[in-house]
């Protein structure tokens, strides 16, 4: 690389007189700063608008009652409910997603992989409102008729969110499994282990951090997902800790969308909703940061 680098530098130095070249580089550099600018603006404006709600202090962060009509803005209840829905969905996505990833990476015949893989890629992008609508029309009615209750329930939220996190879990886990050095696998096979034994004893333990990363990323997606989950979980007016999976529930994202429709601009309610957005942002950012660190650690190893 050294020689090539030097050739490039020499080239660049030779072009040094050309003002146009320099201008283009500067212009591209300025344009590439746009992402920083947008993130910066998002943080500043969200914090500024959320501040009056954060100023409520403990009442805001640890309050268990969210009831805008009586000016009670305790978000802990919403955060708890968000995690109840997110973790359940993640468990479902793990049960289906990890075996699918192992299958795609290790066992699937080529032709079957060529069918499954595009399906997984499609599933990532299906508009969430369509999945939510399907959930509302099919899943909710099915749950109501089979198990009773309103139908709009935690269970429906789990299933719909699991469908939406599944593709993320599958593609990252599959990459992690494929990244395990071939030599490990061959050594295990040479020792007389079966393919399945090799997968469970050698490949999966080595892909551990990548798989875990995919789950945490899936969690981030589940927590930030809005429309699909909003349409199937019922959103009771006053959120409460549910006692069964058939009860309706309310999460951070659905609260923002539903109440933004009637909030009064400039009221504490509006500030509290934007503060909810900030809390959501922080939770998702933390989960993403953990994922990034884990994937990097896995690659170094």
């Amino acid at each position, binding site marked *: 690389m050294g020689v090539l680098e030097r050739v490039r530098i020499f080239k660049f130095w030779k072009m040094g007189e050309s003002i146009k070249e320099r201008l283009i580089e500067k212009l591209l550099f300025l344009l590439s700063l746009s992402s920083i600018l947008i993130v910066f603006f*998002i943080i500043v404006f969200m914090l500024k608008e959320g501040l009056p709600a954060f100023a409520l202090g403990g009442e805001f962060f640890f309050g268990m009652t969210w009831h805008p009509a009586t000016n009670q803005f305790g978000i802990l209840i919403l955060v708890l409910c968000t995690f109840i829905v997110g973790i359940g969905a993640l468990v479902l996505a793990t049960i289906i997603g990890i*075996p699918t990833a192992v299958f795609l990476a290790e*066992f699937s015949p080529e032709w079957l992989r060529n069918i499954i893989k595009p399906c997984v890629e499609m599933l990532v*992008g299906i508009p969430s409102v*369509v999945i939510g609508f399907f959930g509302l029309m099919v899943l909710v009615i099915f749950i109501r008729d089979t198990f009773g209750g309103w139908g709009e329930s935690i269970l429906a939220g789990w299933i719909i969110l699991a469908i939406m996190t599944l593709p993320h879990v599958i593609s990252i886990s599959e990459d992690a499994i494929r990244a395990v050095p071939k030599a490990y696998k061959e050594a295990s096979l040479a020792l007389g282990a079966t393919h*399945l034994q090799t997968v469970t004893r050698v490949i999966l333990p080595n892909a551990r951090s990548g798989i875990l990363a995919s789950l945490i990323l899936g969690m981030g997606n589940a927590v930030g997902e809005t429309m699909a989950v909003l349409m199937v979980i019922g959103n009771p007016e006053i959120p409460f800790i549910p006692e069964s999976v058939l009860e309706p529930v309310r999460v951070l994202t659905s609260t923002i969308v539903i109440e933004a429709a009637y909030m009064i601009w400039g009221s504490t309610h509006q500030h509290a909703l934007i503060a909810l957005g900030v809390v959501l*942002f922080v939770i998702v950012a933390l989960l993403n940061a953990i994922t990034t660190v884990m994937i990097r650690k896995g690659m170094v190893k």
Partner: protein
Amino acid sequence: MTGNKKITEKLVMIGMYVAAFITVAALFTVVGYVYVKGIGAISLDFLLDYPYRLEFGGIFPQIVGTIYLAAVCLLFAVPLGVASAIYLSEYAPDNMITGTVRFFVECLAGIPSIVIGLFGLIFLVHYLGLGISLLSGGLTLGFMILPWTIRASEEAIKAVPGSYREASLALGASKWQTIRNVVLKNAYPGIISGILLGCGKAIGDTAIVLFTAGSGLEWFLPMAITDPVGSLTVYTYILATQAHTEAGILRAFGASLVLLTMFFMVTVTALYLRNRYVRRMSGW
């Protein structure tokens, strides 16, 4: 003992087949159900008429609105995204500034779309006074897909072999000439594929559009960029949650069908371009 092991192995294999099958089935069930239910709503009137209250008329303004929003979004995100990608992959020295840019691109990609929607509402709609409009909605969607455009373009640019650049530079072309005539010329299918994937995301987004672009029931086409605009996603959402008649629900299915069809056209083109492109590049 060995017999038991064999049975366990068989069971685990069956389990994996079942899991993979469920994944594929989930996609086909959702899509199939929407198509079967929605096809009854589709007629020329439905596609070309203006909506009237919840249950009557067609979805013409919603279809056009979705296309307008995607267009504004791409007009914003594509130049910025491609420029950033060119800078990051061709010019950027390996220093702190570049590292920071990359970090923030990742940050932006990780922000949930509803938070970006709230930001659009605070900043564009209220602070800058653009109002609930096509412009606010398109720009906010642009914020969302910008990092994806950057990533995809960067990948496409990086896939162009270094020898191409060296050949061009050796022929005396300047750096910018090389980028424009050699790198971009070879990377453009990959870049377009990335742009189309971003476009698919923009078409399918609901929360952002709901906050910044309009209520979804608009019975008119936007006359100016500062007018509110309807979209298929918000229309589907409103009807799905607020219509209580058969006709209303049918309309929601029809709108979902049109939305899914647009999404598939964009995404399939993107995946096709990407596969063809990847094959060509690795063929060298």
